[in-house]
């Protein structure tokens, strides 16, 4: 494909322009809010999009994996005896790194287990069958959490001081939010590098394109799909940690809305496309914040979906999705 080089820069240029315009409209604080909300959506959306890319499954349980991740974080922090801000910086760093690692590993493992028992047996089944099991799994996860942690919202320890602020261009911005955004970007870049540069990343991409051919190259499909689920779920686990750090509360029903938004993000960006999912997540964050600023908080959900519909009407495969050749 002989792409004109200007074309590749066009999308980022337009986005940058829009972002700048929006910045001047909503102001720095709301801009950071949008990035923060978007970062959480984007992290969850990545898992959606990876799983979709490799086995074409809308993994409705993914939002609940995120929810379980937040509970794992809560359990971890509170059973280690942390119940508030940690002011000792080295300790904080250790706790944060440890929490992220632990939550990501645990959730990745859970993702692999889910794939093994609920989806793998249905790999050759009619394509709606795994969709229904995905929703079944979502109910199971919700109920298990409800059994162990109770149905009420949980107050989770926010180890980073939520009141800490830094001055950014004349505006005080919450440190937690910046941390959330930074974590999201680091994880996204790590993922992108992993998928495009490593041998396993190539295996994942080739499996997504043609499972049989990948197998003939010596790729173990089952392992590759399991790794995909591991990474996707681990990212959802990271989002769960972020949820706890940022909002300090979680409940067993958190997953549905988050999953819905993340799924929307993934589709908006072009499902199966990692950059697209991230872009979609941030876009939805911006749409929500803008509708609130414009005084339409009651309608924000309708606006998000309305824009999604509009985008898809003009670009039927999402913003960065592959265009299909045939029309009918």
């Amino acid at each position, binding site marked *: 494909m002989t792409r004109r080089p200007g074309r590749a820069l066009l999308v980022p240029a337009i986005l940058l322009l829009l972002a700048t315009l929006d910045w001047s409209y909503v102001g720095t604080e709301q801009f950071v809010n949008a990035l923060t909300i978007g970062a959480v959506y984007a992290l969850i959306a990545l898992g959606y999009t990876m799983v979709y890319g490799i086995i074409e499954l809308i993994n409705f349980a993914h939002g609940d994996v995120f929810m379980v991740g937040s509970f794992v974080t809560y359990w971890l922090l509170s059973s280690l005896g942390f119940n508030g801000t940690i002011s000792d910086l080295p300790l904080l760093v250790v706790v944060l790194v440890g929490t992220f690692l632990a939550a990501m590993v645990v959730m990745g493992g859970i993702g692999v287990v889910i794939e093994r028992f609920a989806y793998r047996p249905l790999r050759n089944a009619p394509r709606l069958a795994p969709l229904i099991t995905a929703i079944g799994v979502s109910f199971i996860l919700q109920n298990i959490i409800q059994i162990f942690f109770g149905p009420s919202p949980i107050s989770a320890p926010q180890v980073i001081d939520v009141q800490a602020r830094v001055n950014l261009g004349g505006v005080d911005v919450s440190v937690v939010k910046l941390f959330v955004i930074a974590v999201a970007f680091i994880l996204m870049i790590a993922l992108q590098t992993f998928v495009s540069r490593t041998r396993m990343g190539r295996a994942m*991409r080739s499996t997504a394109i043609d499972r049989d051919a990948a197998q*003939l*190259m010596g790729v173990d499909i089952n392992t590759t799909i399991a790794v995909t689920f591991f990474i996707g779920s681990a990212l959802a686990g990271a989002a769960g940690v972020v949820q706890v750090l940022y909002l300090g509360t979680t409940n067993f029903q958190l997953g549905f809305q988050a999953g819905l938004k993340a799924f929307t993000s993934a589709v908006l960006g072009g499902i199966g496309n990692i950059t697209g999912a991230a872009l979609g997540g941030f876009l939805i964050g911006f749409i929500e914040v803008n509708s609130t600023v414009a005084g339409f908080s009651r309608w924000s959900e309708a606006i998000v979906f309305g824009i999604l519909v509009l985008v898809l009407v003009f670009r039927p495969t999402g913003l960065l999705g592959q265009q299909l050749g045939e029309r009918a």
Partner: protein
Amino acid sequence: MTATAGAAAPVASQAERPLLRLDDVHTFYVHVHALQGITLEVFPGEIVTLLGGNGAGKTTTLRTISGMIHPRSGTVHFGDDDITNVPAHKLVRRGVGHAPEGRRIFGRMTVLENLQMGAYTRSNKDELGADFERVFALFPRLRERSGQAGGTLSGGEQQMLAIGRALMTHPKLLLLDEPSMGLAPILVEQIFQVIRDIHAQGTTVLVVEQNALMALGVAHRGYILQTGRIVLQDTAANLRQNPEVQKAYLGG
């Protein structure tokens, strides 16, 4: 053709142990009895061709050999190993390379990445470099296009890439499924020349073809399949002379 190629073993010696042996293999697709007792052998250093009409079971035979599908009964041996139920991805390490029907290249990955996928199971950097050189020597076009997405190649180039990718697995036995399908006559000749070259470099080849004329031109021996059974096996020369074969497959 290249300095890196090992010593060629052009003529099969029937006395040797077969490199590949299928023994009374029955394969099913759920309820369809696709292979109904296939027995065939490929000896080291041979080019063997598998001919037959559409739906005769040629592709299924290759998929059974490469472990994409497992037979319900019968055995498949590769060298001394029973590989009947070994999954495809493990067979690649043992030396079975398969360029599937319809090319099946990774359209969204670059040519280079496609070749790297072929080398997925291998880690020896020096060997790999040599193999890349070997493939680029066989198909100079691929070197020119190494940065291009596989899906944007022309049909012939895609076929070259598919074969090159299979070669990157460094196979002892290369399975080629309809390498000439859908190609212009001029390219068909090139592809068969490449098959000869690959063989000359020491790789055993099992090729499934529609184009019986060309296939029997390069092969040492051939099998003819009909509805999941082998109905005829002989040397290529004899098959070319067989009136039945001429009528059904050579348009004579």
